[in-house]
Structures are given as C-alpha cells and as structure tokens.
C-alpha cells in the first residue's frame, strides 16, 4: 500500500462529443495522435504516473463519452473525483456554450464538499486548425473562466501536442492542493465500547 507520499488522483474529462477528449488524453499518456474519429463508449480509463514537486502522483484519468446518450451514467463516474477537466473545441461555439451545463451537471452529480473551490481546468482544444475557422476567442474563454472563480485556462492541440503536458501538470497540482485539506481529520478514535450494552445482538458462538 502507499506511503503517505504516494497519491492517487481521480481526474474526470468532460465536454461535448468530438471536442478531442480522448485525443488529449491519448496524447498526454501515449504521445500519440490519430486523425480518425472514434466515439468513446461509456468511458475509458488510463493511468499515468507523474512527479509533482517531490511527490509521485498516480493520475487515474476517466475519459468519459461526450454523447448525450451516455449522460445518465454521470453520477457513477463523477463520484469522488479530485479534479474535473472541461474541454471544448475553439472552432465550435456550441461546444463552448455547453461548458456551463457540463460544469453544473458535474457539481450536482459529484456534489463535492466545497463546490466553490473544487478544482476545474478548462481546455480549448484544436488550436492547430486555421485561424479563419476559429469561432471562440481566447478573450471570451478567459472571461468565462474568470467568472467561474478563476478556472485555469489552456489552449491546446492534441494533434501537435501543444500545451498538453502543461495543462495536465496544472491539473495534477490543483487536485493535489485540494487533497491537503487542513480541516479534514480522519484520525479520531471512535468511542470505547461499553461491554454491557451490546450483548443481545450476538447470535453465533465459537465455543
């Protein structure tokens, strides 16, 4: 099992269908990219070990399906996440506009302890495409991120591996900060047993 230095972080990637969630993850974990589109069914699971500062961190990445028909599975996937990555396509304004609902949905379903400060990261993907195709400006995206409590924002290209490493490093870092929560105490000793109170519930006997 782990020493206290070793940490495991559950990272959920959300966003519309076709924005490049799987490609980003694949670029990050495997350093590979394929132009071919293949829809994710349900979810994919990847593991990557990284060093953040001096700590060995295992990232358990949950790449979810963007398609509407899989959304009922949300609760199961979002539960107990340490960080949520919202992805949109800078060449597709609808994928940007739905970020709001992805974020709300996540907060409702995962119901983290401190929703205000839950670590999100926003990635604007596919910046390798021609400038003329781009419909969501950097300014517009950053304004949105600021309005949601200063969510870190990265413009990435899974195809050309731009900013991918950087973005995931931030993801790990922010999730780690959340881990080190000072008001959380798990080491309280439960109360002592009083032996006279609980003799009736006993059924089987060894001797």
């Amino acid at each position, binding site marked *: 099992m782990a020493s206290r230095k070793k940490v495991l972080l559950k990272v959920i990637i959300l966003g519309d269908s076709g924005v490049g969630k799987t490609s980003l993850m694949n670029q990050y974990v495997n350093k590979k990219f394929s132009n071919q589109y*293949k829809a994710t069914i349900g979810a994919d699971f990847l593991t990557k070990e990284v060093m953040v500062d001096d700590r060995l961190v295992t990232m358990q990445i949950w790449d979810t399906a963007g398609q509407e028909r899989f959304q009922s599975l949300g609760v199961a996937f979002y539960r107990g*996440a340490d960080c949520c990555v919202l992805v949109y396509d800078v060449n597709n304004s609808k994928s940007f506009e739905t970020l709001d609902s992805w974020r709300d949905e996540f907060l409702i379903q995962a119901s983290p302890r401190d929703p205000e400060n839950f670590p999100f990261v926003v990635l604007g993907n596919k910046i390798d495409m021609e400038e003329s195709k781009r419909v969501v400006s950097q300014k517009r995206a950053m304004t949105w991120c600021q309005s949601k409590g200063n969510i870190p924002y990265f413009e990435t290209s899974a195809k050309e591996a731009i900013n991918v490493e950087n973005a995931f490093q931030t993801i790990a870092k922010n999730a780690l900060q959340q881990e080190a929560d000072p008001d959380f105490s798990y080491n309280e000793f439960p109360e002592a047993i009083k032996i006279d109170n609980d003799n009736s519930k006993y059924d089987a006997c060894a001797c």
Partner: protein
Amino acid sequence: MSFSLPRSPLLSPMSPIMEDVLSDSNSVITSDEPLSPTLQPQRKYSVYKAKPTTQLSLSVPSTKAYSSSSAGSSVKSFNAISNLLDSSINGENRSKESYVDDYLTKIMNRSNSASSTDNEYLTFCKGFIDNKKRNFSSEPESDMSLDFDARNESIDSDSSIECKMSNGHSNNLDMPAIPIDEEYSGYRRKYGHEDPQSVTWSRHRKHFFILSSSGKPIYTRYGDESRISSYMGVIQAIISFFVDAEDSLRCINAGNHKFVFLLKGPLYLVAVSRTNESESQLNYLYNQILSVLTSTQLTKIYEQRMNFDLRILLGGTEPFLDKLANSMSDEPGFMLGSIQCVRMSKELRDKVGNILQIVKSKDLLYAMLITNYKLITLLRLKKHSLHSADLHLVFNMVNGSSTFRSVESWTPICLPKFNNKGFLHAYVCYITANVCLLLISPDKDKFFELSDAKNTIVEQLTACDALQGIEAASQSEGYSIADIGVAGLRHFIYKSKTCLQYTSPAFLASYNNPREKRRLFKLYRYTHDRMHSRVRPLKVHYYVSPSETILGWITATFELYAAFGPLISKTALTNSSLVLLKWIKKEEENLFIMNSPVF
C-alpha cells in the same frame, strides 16, 4: 433480478477440475430481488448466447488503436469494438439497458477474443485469460483442456514455482523504472512488483481487489494497486451500471474465470478466480479492514470525503490482508466457518483454563491461549461468546506479524461480529516459543494491569508443569491418520456443528507437499460447495476422482469430509466412516472445547 444462461450439457459441472477447465458459458447473476416487470424491461442478452467462437472476429480489428507500452502509462479501454458497435447503433435513441449491454458485451468480447497478435492490449477481463489457451478453447475438448489445467497448476500463485514466460509476452521489459517507495515499512511483498500487464500477473489463480465506490484503488493481492487503477475504474463502471438500475452485481462467469463482487457501502470488493470462490472470502477481507478502522470510522471518512484515498489509513495493513488472502486458500476454517483446537487432554485444558481465571476482572472480555491457527483455550465474560469470524481475525493478526513473537504488545482491534463500531484492546504476548496469550479488554488503559496478570499466569502454569504440557502439544503437528486406525482412510475434516469447531489430522504421507495438499483441499471445497448449494442442499455426497474418493456427510450435529482411495467399495467406505465417527466421539473432549469456561 437474476439471469443465467443455459450451459451446454457438455459443460455441466461434474468435477471441480472439469468445471474449472470447461465451464465456458458466460452468465451474469445479480441480486435476486424481483423487480416489477414495468420497472424492469426485459433485457435481451442475445450476445452472450452466441458461442465464444462466433465473436472472435468482432474485437480484433481495432484493438491496436491504443497500445499501452508507452512510458509510465497503461491504457485500458472499453473502446476496442466501439467503432463497430457505433456504426450499428449511431443515431438510435437507446435505452439505458442497452448501455449495460454494450459494456458487458465488450467485456465478454474481450474475454472471449482470441488473437495472439493483441498481446500488448490486455483489458480487464481478458487480462486474466491466457492468450495461448484461448486459441484452443474455442472447441472445448476435455483432454486438451485438462492438459492446460496441468500446465496452469504448475504456476499456481500460492506456490513458489516461478512462471516461465511463454512466447513473446515480455511487456514488462518495456516498463520504466518507477521509483519504489518502501520507506513506510520493511515489508516487501512477494508479488508486489509484478507488472499488471504481464502474463505472470494475469495467470494467478485468485485475485482480490478492493476499491472505493468512487473507483480508487485500495488493495490488490498481486502487483501495485496504483498501477492497476485503470482496472479499478472499469470495475467501478461495471458495478455502477447495476447500482444505477437499483440492482447489485454479484457474479460474472466468463470462461474459466469467476468474478465475484461484494458491495459494502463505500467499499467494493472483487475476487477474480479460476477456483470458483464464493463471496464469503470477500467478507473475511472486509472484516479485516473493519478490524483496523471500525465501520464508524470508515463510514465517517467517506461521508466527509468521497474521494478519500483509504491507503493512507491502511498503511501497514497490507501484510495482514496478504496473509489472510493466502490462508483462505489452504485453511479449512474459513470455508467451514469454524476454528480448530489443539488436541490435548481435557485435564490439561481444564487446568490451564482454571489458571487463566485468575485474571478475572470486570474489564476483561476474553482471555485465550493460541498456537498458530489453533485455539488452546478460551475464557470469556458471561453472555459474550466469540464468533469464529472474529477468532479468524485474531489468528490472522497474531500470525501476520513476527513482531508479536519478540515483545509484549498492546493493540487496538475491532472485532466486527462482536461490535463493528468500536475498538477493543488486545494484550498479546508469547509465553513460550509457540504459545501466545491474548487478553482482550474494552479499556484502552489496561496494559500494565494485564502485563502483570501475564506474569502471574506464567508463574502458575510453570508451577504445575502445564506450561511444558501446552508447549509440547503446540509443537506437535497434530495427530496422524494412523493414530485412528481406520482402514482406507487417507484424510478427513470433521466439523462439530454444536461447538463450531473442526478437527483434522496432520497432512502426512502423500499430502505433505503443497500441491497435493491444495488438490485435496480443492476436492473438499468442491464437495462442500455442492452440499451447501442454495438451490439443492445435500446430506450425503459421494464423489470419485481419479485419485480419491471423497465422502461428504452432513447431519444435524456434524459435517464430515473424508478422503479415501479411489477404489474403495461403498460398504467399506461406510464402515470406515462409522469407525471414524466412533473414534471422534471417544476423543471428543480432547479434540474440542466442549464447554468454554466463563469468568
């Protein structure tokens, strides 16, 4: 809801070995709660009904899309057949049930696919299945499969025999050197650094996984749990589909493997085995975790933080979980829900019991003397008996760490059957080389008092020569089958249902090597499972294997499992069994603790 697919007649369970090898049907059993038909639309699992061979072509083409050999990473994906499924379902508005189908189909497909080219892409289920073997198993013929069984036998996980890597499965050579952090304890796990991508890892006969309900890894029997966190994600996803439908997944049969699930609030426990294990073993593992944390603490932690990494709190518990996982494979007490006592004369046991009485104190709950996994004597407070499951935890704790052998220890322990909400405190001290004294109190400040009590106990035991007596009894391997003198009898296990204790002679002669011992144990377990089948429980079970005849016999007062030679006649077997029962009756007071003394 429950469904199971009809097995082909050829595959009906006849012998444990045949079952192990041949049961190639895929079935999923979930909880039995009947759901109203309106709530539970009829699911059609037509995909599973296809014979595995018919699915071979399905999953192969796209499996190369992600390769998992890159540095520091691994990929598990359900996506292997996604484009295929997608092309057939795109645009359709599908019900939730169909997603379940998708997942299971994919799992099944993965587990049934046979392609020697996709070695590097092992998914959760398929990871457990030897590629080479699968190539043949499309046409299950008994002799060929038996051949494989023999081969697998030689790489049994519990034995120390090294597995030879067959053909080119050398993925582990690609794995980067991950810094290994072992400073938290000196415990080095035997299989702790096994590569989860390797065949050696997937071939172990019985895997245990423990994860949180959010899919975070807590424990794996083999390998490093953080490196199989993708598998844990897959497990969580599969379970969630059923939880979502307010159902709970209990078991999946896939090829030779059985996946058993136990959902305990914030914890999910999973066993994947080729040995047909039941969920009772998962209950023991769960109890082991409770014994360290208590259910109060466990619930509270996850209420406060769903994403909690439980490994932080369980640091140092791993040796005990490992020990437990191992002993469940060769200790009949777990299967029988009972414990074994050291055979000794009633007079000696009574004498020892009387001496233990001197520690009588209102704050003492139990006082016991144990040796290895056997009980010498147990004293308890009136009205507080000790459940065998709790005793197994005590045995496991004492035997799981060599620390107890060298010093007096004082340790908190939760005995879940007694009370899963709080800790008791155990004073543990070896008073001779093999005999360990345990004094269990609810009061956490009793160490010095109990330590003094120990000195008095040892003094008195020495004074009346009882100490040498119990040490001698502990050192012996137990009685041998020759002591009983029953013709044709090779070995037996007898459980007294009234005392909840069992007795069994030492494994001698042909059964003293680990493999033979395990083989015999497997026959006992098979007999036991058949007789305790929920569908049709049996009173008598007679089974002839190529090497043994096994008699199973259950009455209101005992359970007997006896091994004879394969050629014994039924009359001789019956007579011998009666002689054995007579011997046990005569020896009863020495074999069992008939009346546990109280304070």
